[in-house]
């Protein structure tokens, strides 16, 4: 079916609650089957389905193929007890947005959708919000029990405080307990070296780390056209400028910074994904599922 992703932010913004957005995004990813659980490579046999190119050939049911001349895949219920930590940067800069939703809105939608995925698989999901003030924790709980508290906390998140994006990673280091999968949602508008050091600490503690860099399209391309008084959301003072006149220099500076951050994280083997807020949540959700599967394989499941 040639349909657009249900995780398109334009579509999600029309829905009324964070819970509904998370459900819609995840159900879109899961093929729309209502209340279905994700199926994968666990132990309990669930069903057969037709083979499609790209499927793992080890899961092909050769007996059925020999008997019926049809190629089918054995699908199993996934079983795990993985812990997923969602670190959300709530500094004031995350309040920026030009599309009708802010970077923080987009981050909370993504985090809620990831938490929904974890809950659907009975994984443990925890949350840390930090943006320059006191961090807010939601302890990791498994299954659907922890989901409402997590969604309520995300729903109430406000973009306040001046802080380096690395602070949320630093706040998490040493406090996340058992090894797990850490998804760090931030705009990364800060010292790239400090962010890389924070990610490095999390890696040293044995976590798999995935950084989702959430940016408004205007921040990437400075696509405004008229002269403007720019007011810094986190200090930075006031600057009068014609965006058209400085666009080229801005984009160069921005990409240099992005390159430094990307290179530093890749050297640590940290997954890094740039997510413009006008694009679908699907790459993040798919990347997360791939990471989760890798983590489970590493754990010997």
């Amino acid at each position, binding site marked *: *079916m040639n*349909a*657009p*992703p*249900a*995780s*398109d932010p334009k*579509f999600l*913004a*029309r*829905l*009324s*609650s964070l*819970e*509904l957005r998370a459900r*819609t*995004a995840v*159900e*879109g*990813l899961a*093929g*729309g*089957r*209502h*209340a279905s659980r994700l199926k994968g490579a666990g132990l309990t046999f669930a069903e057969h389905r037709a083979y499609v190119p790209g499927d793992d050939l080890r899961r092909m049911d050769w007996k059925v193929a020999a008997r019926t001349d049809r190629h089918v895949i054995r699908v199993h219920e996934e079983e795990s007890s993985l812990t997923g930590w969602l670190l959300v940067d709530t500094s004031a*800069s*995350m*309040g*920026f947005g030009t599309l*009708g*939703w802010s970077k923080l809105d987009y981050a909370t939608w993504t985090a809620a959708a990831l938490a929904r995925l974890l809950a659907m698989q009975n994984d443990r999901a925890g949350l840390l919000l930090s943006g320059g003030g006191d961090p807010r924790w939601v302890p990791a709980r498994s299954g659907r029990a922890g989901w409402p508290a997590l969604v309520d906390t995300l729903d109430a998140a406000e973009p306040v405080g001046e802080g380096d994006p690395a602070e949320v990673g630093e706040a998490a280091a040493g406090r996340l307990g058992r090894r797990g999968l850490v998804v760090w949602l931030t*705009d990364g*508008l800060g010292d790239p070296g400090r962010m890389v050091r924070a990610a490095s600490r999390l890696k040293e503690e044995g976590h798999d780390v995935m950084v989702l860099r959430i940016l408004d399209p205007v*921040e990437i391309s400075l696509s405004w*056209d*008229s*002269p*403007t*008084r*720019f*007011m*810094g*959301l*986190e*200090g*930075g*003072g006031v*600057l*009068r400028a*014609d965006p*058209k*006149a*400085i*666009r*080229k*220099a*801005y984009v*160069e*500076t*921005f990409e240099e910074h992005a390159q430094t951050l990307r290179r530093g994280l890749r050297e640590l083997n940290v997954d890094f994904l740039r997510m413009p807020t006008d694009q679908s949540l699907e790459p993040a959700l798919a990347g997360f599922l791939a990471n989760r599967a890798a983590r489970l394989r590493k754990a010997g499941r």
Partner: protein
Amino acid sequence: MTFLHPGLLWALPAVAIPILIHLLRRRRLPERDFAAMDFLALAFQKARRRILLEDALLLALRTGAVLFLILALAGPRSGGGETSSGGGPQADVIVLDASMSMGFRDGNGLRAWDAALAEARKRLAGRLESQGDRAVLVRAGHENVRLVAGSPRVARQILEEASDPDPTSCGMGDALFLAAREAEAIARPGLPVRITILTDLQRATWDIQGREGEALRQLLESFPLVDVVNVGAPSRPNLAIVHLETAPVSPAPGEPAQIRTRVRNFGDSPRTANLEMTLDGAPLARWDRVLDPGEEATWLQIVIPAGTGPRKLEARLQPDGLRADDSRGAVVVVRETPTVILAGEPSLPGERRLVFETLSGFLDLGPGAPLDMHEVAPSSIEARTLEGASVLVLADPRALPPSSVAAIADRVRQGMGLLWAVGPTTHPEDAAPLLSALGAGPSLVGPVQSPERPATLSIRDENHPAIALFSDPTWRPLLEEVPHSSFRILDPDAAPSSAKVPLVFDGESAAWVEWKEGEGRCAVVAAVPIPGWNRMEEIPGGTLPFLLEAVTSLVAGIPHPLVVETGEEIAVVLAAGRGNIEVQPPLGPRRIPFAVTARPEGGALVIAASSALIPGIWVVTSDSDPLGASTLSSTASVAVVPPSSESDLAAWDTSDLVTAVPDLALDSRAPAQGETPGKDLPLGDSVFLLVAGLLATESLLARWLDRKRASA
């Protein structure tokens, strides 16, 4: 070089104007919050030297243009004298254009309307009834009215007390015909009639090839002395809010409503629109945007209103020459969360899942959801079960008892919506009693079709509220690529004649038939998720919004318009009350009288307020009986908005009018007392050419820089 008007050289300090504008624009730039300020500051440092050079060159060209313009204007000029009118009695018929655009203020704060009144006073000065002079004033506004006929003294008094122009357009052609009739009534031998039309010559008012041109020609046939005086300002920049709407108009509590505000720059130079939006008077959002000449920009704002009932939304621009279009109101009615009753039978053990289970799974969204859903067995439906229900969803029910059929039909007529999801267990003979109770024929639900190639849905009514989301090309495939291996066909010919078919199978057979029965809407839908029959369940992220929109589209809407144009009648439908009705207009510059009528209709009261001439939100209240069973509200709000055609101040050139009506006498602008009209300026021509050259160079350079920066 010598100057004929050396006094004008005192204007030379005006060369500082471009520099002042440059500095003022720097101070009045739109403000924007921005997150990546560090990168911006670094980029600015890198590009600073180049930007300064480019700006200095542009500034030099602009300053030069102003300098040479002043020099050209100070060159030799020849003056001319005013023509004087002859003696003897005179009859004056003066037509005052009182349309909204006449409220436009020029740079000195003077309205075109003020200029029209001054010119009318001037033309009537010295006229005496005792000498046989006569005067008629015709006001062309919301209505064409003869203000006075006869005494010039009374006419002058009326001009002193004239009310402001109306916030409406005017029918100038009809006003001219009225003036012709009045002129005929006072004309007599020895009394020449001079007809003066004081107008801003707005193109929206003057159809010079049509009605207005024809009226002028007819006037001239009977009365050779017709003057059209253009009292409009030479420059008419105007920013206007031309549209304000919310979608949906009536959201549920917590449901986001998108506010769409359209702003247009009707002027011939770029302008900054500083927009402010309020909800019930409290600030909601601000928006700044530079608009090029003729550009229309749309501001999208999402609001999630709390509480229920009508809310007043207002968008406001910084005041400019024409104030009437600098603000615009809209009404958002936050409705109660709809109560939805889902009636159907679960499948028996071992059976395939049926419609009831799939609909229940999708629509039961839990607390905080946009629907408050309850499930009942079809056999237990009775009047009490349906009390307070906004929509009843019948999920493929088997036969319904006669008492249930009667209860459903009664509630539908009172305003409850009905969504009848048709599937494998809906048998035409079981469906017949309810269909006939709802005004449809028994053959509406037809037999099961199982085509060789699965059928797909296609959209027939793009504007249907439940399908609007999917009419977007991005989302269209969600509905159109669902294979249906089996479905029941619907026969729209068996539905009442007003029935609509929003969705069809394979572009032919009806998949959705909808009609109105009494106050309620009935929809019979064969395109519902049924495992084994179709693959609608698998639409990624689409089935839930589709079903939500389908159900909410059947909730009874607001029974009257929420927006009317100034001058039109406000008509609202409220719960019937004991008789006290209050119509509260918004605060206007002056109280403008309006008439209120009320008539009962069914269990409702239709209240009409005529000639709503004050833009803004009007509130109508009736003292409804608190014990009454009416589901209608006792208060309604309606937004009265000015016509956007009046915001476009583009005017005819007087030469256009002469071309259309050759015998016409024209003043391009009423000369003030003692003012002498200017003549051509031969010695200034070469300097004007230089100014034009400088401006052209500036324009080319600015455009080249713009393109260069945009390509960066």
